[in-house]
């Protein structure tokens, strides 16, 4: 396990940190530490401007190849960028779906014209993307998607009809990538296509979902004969599942150390309160704070193991446990925060429902163990792929 980065990497860290210090200032000071998970609905205009500023500085899409405007940054450099970004209090990136999901998918599976049409807008921080995967009937079982895409031969365009759900920043996005069924006679993984669809058109309707926090960062997106040019299917009809799964494989954990830096500020806050209000003398609370500390450090060394693993893109054992690990840790942290605050945890910052940071943490971390594969699905994946236990029997869909 590499505990430290090389000198060249540390020099890169200095560059990142200097740029962020110079630029995340002035008008952008107000958005420091904002717009992360659970807070994605705030300061959207300012964060769009920030995305453009990042792009001007050459700090969007650094992992992309230089031909497409990236820096061809190594995994280590990407980790360092994310770490420094979090340390500087960089706001939640409105461009992250495009940069981390759409871009790598197009680089791997897209046509030349798709790359030329879409990659520059993402790189420039000007065109924002959202994700069209989950549906009301297709959550854990993503292959059950029922949104359908029919090719209209006369206009050479696909007509897309159906409903997507849990789409972050849908109303701010220019495009959505949609997993939809191209062959209605097929079920499951077969007969799916992967489409690049403009959001700003009459066939697309967005409805926000108010969450238990009182805020709304997720949306339902309705497609009613929404149009998508025949050039904008990635790969062939029927290859959608392969492309969708490939996309999930692009997450190599480069953002995990940055995420952990945010977790550390939350834990530090809880420790500060425990020291101040005397709960830090309670033996049971002391045990839990120590456990939280150990858990966070475990995440760090898990990530370092993950990053020093093979380059073949296959998930190794520590990568497979990572989601289950961090989500459970974070959810427990939310409860620990409430127990350290005691009765004060109940009092809001303001009426009607303005939550403090730790209250948001407590409520929103209940989502952590659900989105991106529930803890139950994660355990299935671990048991089946890492431990070689039998696959779940499938019912008729």
């Amino acid at each position, binding site marked *: *396990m590499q*505990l430290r980065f090389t000198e060249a990497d540390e020099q890169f860290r200095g560059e990142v940190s200097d740029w962020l210090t110079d630029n995340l200032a002035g008008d952008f000071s107000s958005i420091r530490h904002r717009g992360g998970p659970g807070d994605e609905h705030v300061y959207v205009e300012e964060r769009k401007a920030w995305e453009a500023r990042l792009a001007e500085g050459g700090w969007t899409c650094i992992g992309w190849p230089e031909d497409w405007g990236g820096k061809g940054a190594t995994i280590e450099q990407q980790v360092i960028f994310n770490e420094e970004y979090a340390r500087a209090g960089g706001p939640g990136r409105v461009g992250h779906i495009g940069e981390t999901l759409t871009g790598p998918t197009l680089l791997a599976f897209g046509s030349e014209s798709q790359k030329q049409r879409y990659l520059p807008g993402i790189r420039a921080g000007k065109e924002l993307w959202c994700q069209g995967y989950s549906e009301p009937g297709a959550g854990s079982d993503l292959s059950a998607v029922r949104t359908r895409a029919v090719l209209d031969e006369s206009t050479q365009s696909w007509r897309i009809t159906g409903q997507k759900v849990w789409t972050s920043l849908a109303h701010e996005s220019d495009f959505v990538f949609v997993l939809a069924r191209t062959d209605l006679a097929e079920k499951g993984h077969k007969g799916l296509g992967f489409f690049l669809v403009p959001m700003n058109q009459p066939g697309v309707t967005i409805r926000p979902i108010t969450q238990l926090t009182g805020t709304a960062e997720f949306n339902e997106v309705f497609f009613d004969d929404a149009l998508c040019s025949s050039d904008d299917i990635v790969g062939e009809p029927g290859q959608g599942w392969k492309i969708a799964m490939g996309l999930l494989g692009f997450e190599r954990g480069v953002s995990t150390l940055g995420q952990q830096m945010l977790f*550390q500020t939350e834990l*530090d806050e809880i*420790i*500060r309160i*425990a*020291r101040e209000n005397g709960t*830090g*003398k309670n*033996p049971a609370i*002391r*045990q839990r*704070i*120590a*456990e939280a*500390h*150990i858990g966070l*450090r*475990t995440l760090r*060394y*898990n990530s*370092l*193991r993950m990053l020093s693993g093979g380059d073949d893109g296959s998930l190794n*054992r*520590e990568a497979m*446990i990572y989601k*289950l*690990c961090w989500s459970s840790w974070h959810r427990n942290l939310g409860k620990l925060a409430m127990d350290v605050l005691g009765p004060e945890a109940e009092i809001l910052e303001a009426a009607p429902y303005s939550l403090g940071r730790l209250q948001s943490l407590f409520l929103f971390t209940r989502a952590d163990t659900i989105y991106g594969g529930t803890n*139950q699905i*994660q*355990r*299935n994946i*671990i*048991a*089946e792929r*890492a*431990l*070689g*236990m*039998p696959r*779940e*029997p499938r019912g008729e869909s």
Partner: protein
Amino acid sequence: MLRDSVEGFLSEHSDSPAVRAAMASNSGIDERLWEKICTDMYWQAILVPEEFGGLGLGLLEVVIVLEQMGRFLTPAPLAAGTQSALALRTVVDQPLAKTMLDDLARGQLVAFAHTAARPHWDGQGVEIVATEVPSGWTLQGEARFIASGNSADALLVVAQIDNKLGLFRVAANQAGVAFSRMPTMDQTRPMGLLQLSGVAVNGEDCLATDWGQHLEAVLDLSRIMVGAEQVGCAQASLDQSVSYVSERVQFGRTIASYQAIKHKAADMMLKVESARSLLYYAACVGDETLMATAPSADLREAAAMLASSAGDAAFFCAGTGIQLHGGVGITEEYDIQLYFKRARSMEAYLGRPDEQREVLAAMLLDGDDCHAA
């Protein structure tokens, strides 16, 4: 790779029948295997500096070996001898220390005897008292939980001298020395009891008279070695359980196909891999400490985190392993019960996981200044 060679060697020489044969022996140690390790594998010399005939490698290499030994429950006193090597490295300017390191590298077993642990594992638990006399020193008192059982050619004894701690060499066959094996619940890990009744040693056998400052580091490095065995023990509990549930058929299918079983196995793997991540971090910190590049607070923290995580992982995996084995899990015939006993004995040795967490809590909550991440 070292790991593969260790695994290959142990799967050939330390299988379940070999472990059970050693359990039934007087010493509780697989003596033939230990001899083979010392002559063919040279693991006892990993931490002995090259100038004294050792390999001059690091804690990381010891950890790799011990993780596999924990996996196979190998009853061999590698950790016990390595504890002594670590202690001797702190007094290496003493001629006797050089001789003893040389002996260790050649396969003589020197066991570390430091505490009676009632209930303290640190200096407060040291009950042997050293009194200076004209001919040298007289040692009186007892030490328990010696990690080699009653096997050792010599002992490295920590003793109180007024308010300080001294370090002495005592030969196992010396007059006044009673060295016996404590009967223990865990049959694969013998524990020794050393009783010293007015044992006379000469001045050269005193390696240090103010050694207390080093004890904590030796114990923390020992905790990392225990953590390695715990990770191995947890891994084996998981592997044997998955193997069992993949064969056991109920209601017309293997019980491995039930989610209730799969999710337990997944939780076991999560704990094993988490503890393993901390183990290799702690081993790196241990090596930096040995090279005096890491501050000792880092070692204290790393050892405490690992002892908590690996202790819990081993106990959880072995306990859950018995449950997944069902009825046969509580029989003598299946090995999972041996892992369960091993997990229990190791989690208590050198401080329970909750005690280690309290150490961390004190670091995080009790200092004057706010902790820095």
